[in-house]
C-alpha cells in the first residue's frame, strides 16, 4: 500500500512540471504583452522597454521559466494587477467560498443520488426506475447556468423563498475567522448568520450538484444491479439473513466502490461548473475571480489561479486513488 502511494506520488512530478510549463507558455502566448497590461494607457515605448527589462522579459526563455519555478516554489504566486493584493491572499479569501459551494453540491448529489439509484435498482423496471433514468438524463442534458437561472426565477423571483445572490445578507453582522461562512456561524455561535449562509448556499449547490447527481444515480443503479446477482449475495440470502441486512452489508457496501471513484472524479467537473454557477449567483469564489481576471487580462491572477486550481485537481485525484486502495481490500492486499 505504501509503495502504491509513493509510486502515485512520484507520478505527480512530471505532471506538475508539465503544468507549470503549460501555464508559463500559455501566458506568453496571450495577446497583449504583460508590460502593456501593467502600464495600461500610459504605455510608451521607453516605459515598455523599462518594464521588460525590470521583469527580465528580455532574458532567454529557460531563464525566465526557471525564475518562475523558483518563485512558485517559494510560495509566491505574484500580485494581482487589478487589486494590487498578493494572489495567495486572494485565494485565501475566495477558495473557501468555492469549497463551500462544491461541498454543498456534492452533499446534495450523494444524499439524493445514491438512494435514488439504489431504489431504482431494487425496483428494476418499475415506474420509479424509469423516473430515475429520465431524471438523470435531464441532469446530464441541462446546462448548469440554465438550471441556475430557472432555480433563481422560481425560488427567488417568483416565490421569494431564497436569496438570489451572494453568500450572506449584507445586513447580517458576522465574524469570519475561517471564511467558510457556515462553519464561521457555528464557531461564533451566531445562529442567524449560519442559517442565512445556508439559505444562500441552497440554490447554487443544487444547480452545481445536478450533473454529479445524475451521474451518481446512474452509477449506483448500474452497480447495485451488478452486485445483486453476485454469488455472495445469493449465499447471504440463502443463509436467511434479513433483506435489510443483506442490502446494507453486502449489496450497498460492494456497490460503493465504483460510486466512490466516480464521486472523486467529479472534482474537476465541479470546478468547471463553479465558474458558471458563481456567475449566475454572484458567488464570490474562485470561478468568478478567474473569469474576471481573464476578462481584464490580469495575468498574474490567471497564471497563479489556473495553476492553483490544476494543482488542487491533481492532488484530489491522488487522494481518491489512494483512498480507493484503502477502501478496496482487493487492491490493498494485492501488493502483499
Amino acid at each position, binding site marked *: 500500500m505504501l509503495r502504491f502511494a509513493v509510486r502515485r506520488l512520484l507520478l505527480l512530478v*512530471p*505532471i506538475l512540471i*508539465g*503544468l507549470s510549463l*503549460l501555464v508559463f507558455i*500559455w501566458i506568453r*502566448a*496571450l*495577446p*497583449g504583452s504583460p508590460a502593456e497590461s501593467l502600464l495600461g494607457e500610459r504605455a510608451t515605448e521607453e516605459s515598455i522597454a523599462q518594464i521588460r527589462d525590470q521583469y527580465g522579459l528580455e532574458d532567454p526563455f529557460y531563464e525566465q521559466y526557471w525564475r518562475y519555478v523558483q518563485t512558485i516554489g517559494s510560495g509566491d504566486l505574484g500580485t494581482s494587477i487589478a487589486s494590487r493584493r498578493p494572489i495567495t491572499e486572494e485565494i485565501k479569501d475566495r477558495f473557501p467560498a468555492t469549497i463551500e459551494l462544491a461541498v454543498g453540491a456534492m452533499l446534495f448529489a450523494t444524499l439524493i443520488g445514491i438512494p435514488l439509484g439504489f431504489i431504482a435498482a431494487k425496483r428494476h423496471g418499475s415506474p420509479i426506475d424509469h423516473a430515475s433514468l429520465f431524471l438523470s*438524463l*435531464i441532469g*446530464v*442534458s*441541462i*446546462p*448548469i*447556468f*440554465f438550471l441556475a*437561472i*430557472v432555480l*433563481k*426565477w422560481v425560488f427567488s*423571483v417568483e416565490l421569494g423563498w431564497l436569496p438570489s445572490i451572494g453568500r450572506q445578507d449584507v445586513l447580517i453582522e458576522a465574524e469570519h475567522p475561517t471564511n467558510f461562512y457556515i462553519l464561521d456561524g457555528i464557531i461564533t455561535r451566531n445562529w442567524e448568520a449560519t442559517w442565512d449562509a445556508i439559505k444562500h448556499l441552497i440554490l447554487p449547490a443544487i444547480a452545481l450538484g445536478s450533473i454529479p447527481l445524475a451521474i451518481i444515480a446512474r452509477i449506483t443503479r448500474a452497480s447495485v444491479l451488478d452486485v445483486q446477482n453476485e454469488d455472495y449475495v445469493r449465499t447471504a440470502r440463502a443463509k436467511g439473513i434479513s433483506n435489510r441486512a443483506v442490502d446494507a452489508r453486502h449489496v450497498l457496501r460492494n456497490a460503493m466502490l465504483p460510486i466512490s471513484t466516480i464521486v472523486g472524479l467529479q472534482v*474537476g*467537473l465541479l*470546478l*468547471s*461548473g463553479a*465558474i*458558471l454557477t458563481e*456567475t*449566475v449567483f454572484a458567488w464570490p469564489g474562485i470561478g468568478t475571480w*478567474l*473569469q474576471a481576471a*481573464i*476578462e481584464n487580462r490580469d495575468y498574474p491572477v*490567471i497564471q497563479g489561479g*489556473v495553476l492553483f*486550481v*490544476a*494543482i488542487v*485537481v*491533481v492532488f484530489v*485525484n491522488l487522494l481518491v486513488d489512494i483512498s480507493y486502495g484503502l477502501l478496496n481490500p482487493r487492491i490493498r492486499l494485492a501488493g502483499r
Partner: protein
Amino acid sequence: MSVAEIEARELKLESAGGGLWRDALYRLVRNPGAIVGFVLVAAFVFVAVFAPWLAPYHPLDQDLDAIAAGCCPGPSSEHWLGQDDLGRDEMSRLIYGARYSLLICIVAVSVGLSAGLLLGAFAGYFRRTDGLIMRVMDVMLAIPGFLMAIGIVALFGGGGLVPVMIAIGVVNIPIFTRLMRGSILAQRDNDYVLAARAVGVPSRKVLASHILPNAISPVIVAATLALATAIIDAAGLGFLGLGPQDPATPEWGTMLVGTIRYLQTAPFLAIFPGICIVIAVMGFNLIGDGLREALDPKLRGRS
C-alpha cells in the same frame, strides 16, 4: 428439445452474428430511447438547415414599437414565442440559433476527434511516443475542461465563433486520445494483428486497416456524447460573453446573457433558449447511450 428446434436456434444464432455493424443497428432501432434521440436530433438538424424557410421573421429585425410599452411582449398570435428586449421575434432567433449550435458542435468534435485519434493511435501503436503523449494528456486533464476552454478562447484575444470551436475541440483531445490508445492496446496483441504482421503488412497499414476498424466503436459512442457536451460548453462560453462577438448573433448561450435582468417581467426569454439547448443535448445523449448499448460486445448475440 427436438433436432428441428436445435437447428432453428442455430440458424437464429448465425443470423444474429451478421457482422458487428448490422447487429448493432438491429439493436439500436429496437431501443426506444435511441429512437427518441434520433427524432430529436433529426428535428434539430432539420431546423438548423432550413432556418431561413422556417423562421417567420428575420432574426435581426427589430420592432422597437413593440417594446415601447415595456419589456417584453410575451407570446402572441404574431410572435408565437414572444419578442426580446429589442422587439426581435424570439422564435426566429431560436430557429437561426440552431445553426450556430449545430455548426459549433460538429466542428469542435471533429477537431477533437481527429487530433485525439491521431495522437491516441500513435501512442498506442508506436510505443516510443507513448510516454510523452500520455503525460501531455495527463497535464491537460488536470485543468478543468471549461476553464481550459476559457483560457484557449483568451488566446484569441476575446470570443468568437472560431475560437469557441477550437477551444471545445482542444478540450476534447485528451478524451479521445486516451480512448483510442486504450482501445488499440487492447487490439494490438490479438491474433489477427500478429498474423497480418507475420505476412509482412507494413505497420501503417496494420494500424489503418486492421486495428482502427476494431478499436473504433467506443470512440463512436464517446463522439456522440461529446457532441452533447460541446453544445452545452458552447452555450456556457456564449453565456460568459465569449461566444460570437456580435451580441446580436442569435446563438442560444449568448441569447441567455441579458435575460437575468428580465426574469421578473419576461422569464420566457430565459426559458425558451434553455429548453432548445436541453432538447438538442438530450437527443445526442439518448443516441450515445443507445449506441453504447448496441455496440457493447458483451451484449452481442443477445437481443
